[in-house]
């Protein structure tokens, strides 16, 4: 058996990014089907919901990928499919963390949510930057630069909520 080389798997990221969101949502709904069914969700509605959420993630990933690809084009390394795969895959990992988390053993729900959001933010963006760096043979600094727009949007989306939750949870008192 040869050595594990992450680069060998990078080429599968576009496919992984495409199938991961619907699969994760299907698994989530499948595990919790008795709860969703009790609240009136049928099989058709479930499939429609999975499709809508997956579309949202694909569109958001494509939006991020467009920005990163613009930077990579200047370096003549552009590959929209791969960047899309990286972003969609990072989103999917965030989703797995979100769905599989309990309240982390903290009864203070606000604090638990705050920690969770920060954790997802770090893991998501670390994956984006790290995978971009490996996939396109870039230094981490250059990869950060390529993802700067994505990081700004992510910070705007996640951090105010995390700060609100942490404040409500009494983290700053």
């Amino acid at each position, binding site marked *: 058996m040869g050595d594990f080389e992450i680069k060998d798997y990078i080429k599968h990221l576009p*496919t992984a990014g*495409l*199938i991961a969101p*619907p*699969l994760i949502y*299907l*698994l989530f*709904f*499948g595990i919790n*089907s*008795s*709860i*969703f*069914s*009790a*609240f*009136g*969700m*049928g*099989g058709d509605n*479930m*499939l429609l919901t*999975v499709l809508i959420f997956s579309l949202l993630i694909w569109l958001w990933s494509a939006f991020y990928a467009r920005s990163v690809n613009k930077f990579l084009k200047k370096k003549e390394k552009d590959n929209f499919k791969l960047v899309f795969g990286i972003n969609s895959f990072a989103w999917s990992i965030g989703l797995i963390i979100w769905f599989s988390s309990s*309240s982390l053993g*903290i*009864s*203070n*729900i*606000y*604090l638990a949510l705050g920690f969770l959001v920060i954790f997802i933010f770090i893991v998501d963006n670390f994956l984006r930057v790290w995978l971009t760096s490996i996939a396109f043979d870039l230094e981490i600094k250059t990869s950060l630069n390529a993802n700067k727009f994505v990081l700004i949007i992510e910070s705007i989306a996640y951090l105010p909520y995390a700060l609100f939750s942490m*404040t*409500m*949870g*009494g*983290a700053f*008192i």
Partner: protein
Amino acid sequence: MKHISVIVICFLVGFVVYIKFESDNMYYDRIYSKDRNNLTIAERGLMAIEREHDLEIRKEEAVLRDYENGKISLEEYENYLQRKLEEENKENEDALEFIGNLYDPEKGMFSGAYKMAMSPKFKKEKQIKELDKTINNLIQDLENENKEIIVIKLQQTTWVPVGDKEIDQEMTKFYEKKIKVILDNL
């Protein structure tokens, strides 16, 4: 070929989950009624718990059948029951601990809001508003009430400590000075 297999996997998972949803809905239709629109959230929650319980019983029956058919040994069956009992006990203990701590002022879900309300800074802001309002009302009452009574009331208006030495010293001095100026003008 790779793409076709990926699409097939997605469809298969989707189909399995779809069937699971249909089976759960059929269970609810059979046990409750087809028209479940008037049920409350609590009733629906209880329905889901009952369904989970039903699935659990079916799983236990399947394991028991395996034991009766000789597919698993007595030891394996006992181990399964023991493990299940331990898991249930742990789940119950965790749930009780979680609920017990839910409204705890130190660790509960509202502990942040509670700590904020109890913090000296918050208490300071609240007391400043109250004292200023009291002083303003007393000054306005000068037209209607006896001056001596107003003076006594003003002398009694003092800063109540909020638990922070620095804030208490600063605010006590501030209000002593403010009330002295008002009294001197009276």
